């Protein structure tokens, strides 16, 4: 859990950091969609290759990246194993009680594993290299059509910004509480699931207390500094779209088209 980096912004200066945040989101979504419609081995080789390039270019470091995402990779791996054991169809290689290993199961499981792998790598890089304020702004931009059904976009933007801003703070808080309860003899790793849930209560109760306390304090300080809701707000950071951004968008669209064409049966 100490190396849990999903969703954490890591300040840096590499190429990916300098891309337009909206472009990054569009590109990420396109690549994830591409990996979900793909059935083709060559397609996955291309997509994983792109993932590799992205990790390399982002300059966050491979060992760090793998350490941080290994929890998710382990989880999808486990799901795939279950899928292999419980799916039935095609050629059956092995059979015992309710467990079956079949060609159909292997196919489904490997597809699912590769798809989620691509999605997690891309999402992690996106969140690691994009400033929370920019993410909030992007989300606000995406929600723009909701304006016409009477949703207040500024509120959405603010709520997202606060939520993202407090992610690292709460992570730190969880770590502190874990350490405190570990010092009182809680063993979080090596015990039964029921015991593990019980030990997590020792973290969750104080965590909720502190979240409510923080929320109250934050609300109070916002009011004290003259915050009123329902007013339109401008952003301190204006994102601009460069030629390089357009180039990247074209490249991503080409990749998307390539994957699409690989999966269309003529």
């Amino acid at each position: 859990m100490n190396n849990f980096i999903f969703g954490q912004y890591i300040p840096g200066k590499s190429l990916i950091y300098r891309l337009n945040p909206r472009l990054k989101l569009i590109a990420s979504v396109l690549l994830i969609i591409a990996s979900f419609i793909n059935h083709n081995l060559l397609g996955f080789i291309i997509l994983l290759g792109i993932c590799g390039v992205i990790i390399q270019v982002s300059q966050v470091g491979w060992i760090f990246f793998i350490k941080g995402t290994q929890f998710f990779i382990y989880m999808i791996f486990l799901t795939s194993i279950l899928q292999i054991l419980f799916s039935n169809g095609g050629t059956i290689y092995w059979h015992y009680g309710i467990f079956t290993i079949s060609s159909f199961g292997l196919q489904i499981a490997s597809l699912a594993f590769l798809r989620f792998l691509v999605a997690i790598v891309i999402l992690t890089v996106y969140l690691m290299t994009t400033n929370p304020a920019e993410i909030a702004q992007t989300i606000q931009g995406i929600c723009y059509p909701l304006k016409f059904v009477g949703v207040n976009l500024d509120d959405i933007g603010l709520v997202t910004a606060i939520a993202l801003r407090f992610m690292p703070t709460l992570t730190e808080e969880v770590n502190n509480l874990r350490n405190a309860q570990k010092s009182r003899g809680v063993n979080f790793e090596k015990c039964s699931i029921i015991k593990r849930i019980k030990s997590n209560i020792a973290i969750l109760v104080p965590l909720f207390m502190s979240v409510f306390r923080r929320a109250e304090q934050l609300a109070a300080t916002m009011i004290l500094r003259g915050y009123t809701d329902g007013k339109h707000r401008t952003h301190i950071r204006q994102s601009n779209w460069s030629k390089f951004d357009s180039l990247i968008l074209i490249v991503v669209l080409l990749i998307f088209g390539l994957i699409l064409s690989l999966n269309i049966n003529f």
Partner: protein
Amino acid sequence: MEIKLKNVGYTYHLNSPMAFTALKNITLTFPAHQLTAIIGKTGSGKSTLIKLLNGLEIPTSGEVVIGNQVIDKYTKSKQLNLVRKNVGMVFQFSENQLFSETVLKDVMFGPLNFGKSEQEAVELAKFWLAKVGIDKDLFEQAPFELSGGQMRRVALAGVLACEPKVLVLDEPGVGLDYVSNQNLMSLLKKLQSQFGLTIIMVTHSMENVAEFADHVVVMKNGAIVRQTKPIELFSTDDSKVELPEAAQFYLKLMKNHQIENELPINKTELINRLLKQFKPNGGTHE
């Protein structure tokens, strides 16, 4: 129980762009049955250092020797529970760790985790709650209904009830008013002599160091710069630490009055010195 650090180094997020060396080649001994204070600016590595003392963090180089147990980077997490039984840790704002429905249950949490029976845990909890000065009437109350100072003492009892031989505290007095802080510190001093506890305490308060510590360790940029007795730390001119208020006051007095130039470092010493120097009839001055 004595704790020794041998050439200990610690780097956060090893092999990553966020890699940060918090401790560099530290060799240090915390003597048994003594109260050692660790001082230093924010970011000097104090908090990291104390996390190494009960196995919450494992040194990335060198070894930590706790009693006769050695922790180095090859130590398995299974072996750490014994270390944690021997070394109790009280964190900053420790009142935030309380979670049970009643005060008594919260204090029983630790002993139960370390394998005590329900009956033993109740007895330990009652004993230590009494020691830290929590009234019997409060035992069945929810911990969140207590005052800040009381909550902190309950949290302290929660750690003491695990019967550690070493007690490590991260800024025990932070956020407390003067009287609560004095009470807490005298309580720790009493526990030290009564139960032979070894106490290690991170603090920003030079007054606490001058008044209560037997030893003091000064940290800077992840290294130990001095390791001495408080009286020596504050009385030598070359020390670049902030002086306790009593000493600062005496220094100002020295500028305008001809008085003994040996600095008193805490309030009691200051008062005694002043009483001696400024006798109403026939003192050295006025």
